[in-house]
């Protein structure tokens, strides 16, 4: 099975979700800012283009990916459905997973500052704090 975590216009939320799924981040304990900043370094080093899956690892039979569809989630879903319809994908299960989570302002503003580049350090700190706030809800949604 291939499992693709995504969240509209972002790569950080699906990445963190994937790492929790793989057990690389502890689901019982909120990670420290330092741990999250280590994740942010991975994002900085390797952020794939839109529509390119980022392989995170394998757990059991599931291959875990994070993917960014930008703001065209429906279009991406239709493209994948079209590939299935044309029988161009393998028969194994391809699952797209997203989260109905409201992002907090620290996460949003931190991400913008970080991506902007000029206030990258402050942006990452703010982002990490926002991710700490979001973490319990993300774990809860993943467990469901």
């Amino acid at each position, binding site marked *: 099975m291939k499992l693709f975590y995504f969240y509209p216009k972002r790569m950080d939320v699906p990445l963190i979700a994937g790492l929790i799924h793989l057990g690389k981040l502890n689901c019982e304990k909120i990670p420290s800012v330092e741990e999250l900043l280590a994740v942010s370094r991975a994002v900085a080093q390797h952020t794939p283009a839109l529509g390119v899956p980022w392989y995170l690892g394998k757990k059991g039979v599931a291959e875990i990916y994070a993917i960014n569809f930008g703001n065209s989630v429906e279009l991406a879903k239709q493209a994948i459905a079209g*590939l299935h319809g044309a029988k161009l994908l393998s028969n194994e299960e391809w699952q797209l997973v997203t989260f109905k989570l409201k992002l907090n302002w620290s996460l949003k503003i931190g991400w913008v500052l970080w991506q902007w580049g000029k206030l990258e350090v402050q942006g990452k700190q703010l982002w990490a704090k926002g991710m700490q706030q979001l973490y319990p809800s993300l774990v809860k949604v993943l467990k469901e």
Partner: protein
Amino acid sequence: MKIIYHCFGGAHASPTTAAIHLKLISNQHLPAITDFKNISKFDVATSQDHGKLNYLGVDHLGNEIYIMGRAHQAPLVTNLIKEFVKLSGGNPDDYCFINCCQSFNLLMVIGGFSSRRLGLVWLGRPLVSLGTLLAFPKLVGIVQKIWISFNTPHLTKS
């Protein structure tokens, strides 16, 4: 090889270009405006079809010809298709994506929007057909470039 002609809606430029490629419509002279209604998938696709590969046939060299609408998101959709095919064990290099948007003109945009988005087929279809007629030499040029790149100069210049 799978050759995928794509444009904004997959309803006018790409079906016409694919029809030229498949020799369902002559590249030797301008078609009559009424000929467009005989082109498979012409003025058919809606936004529900965006992103989906639409198979039209096989050319004389065995290439599979597809059309696709992809709104403004050509890089997203082409990346996605290539990457997912790769994950399935297929070869993404077998997929050749050809953008037909450079042929667009104002009549195609207004006619296409009226017919496909607003559902005003009675108004949009004649406009978009006229626009496609005006764009026809450009569409033939796109196909000719493909043939040249495939090293098979089958199409004579119009």
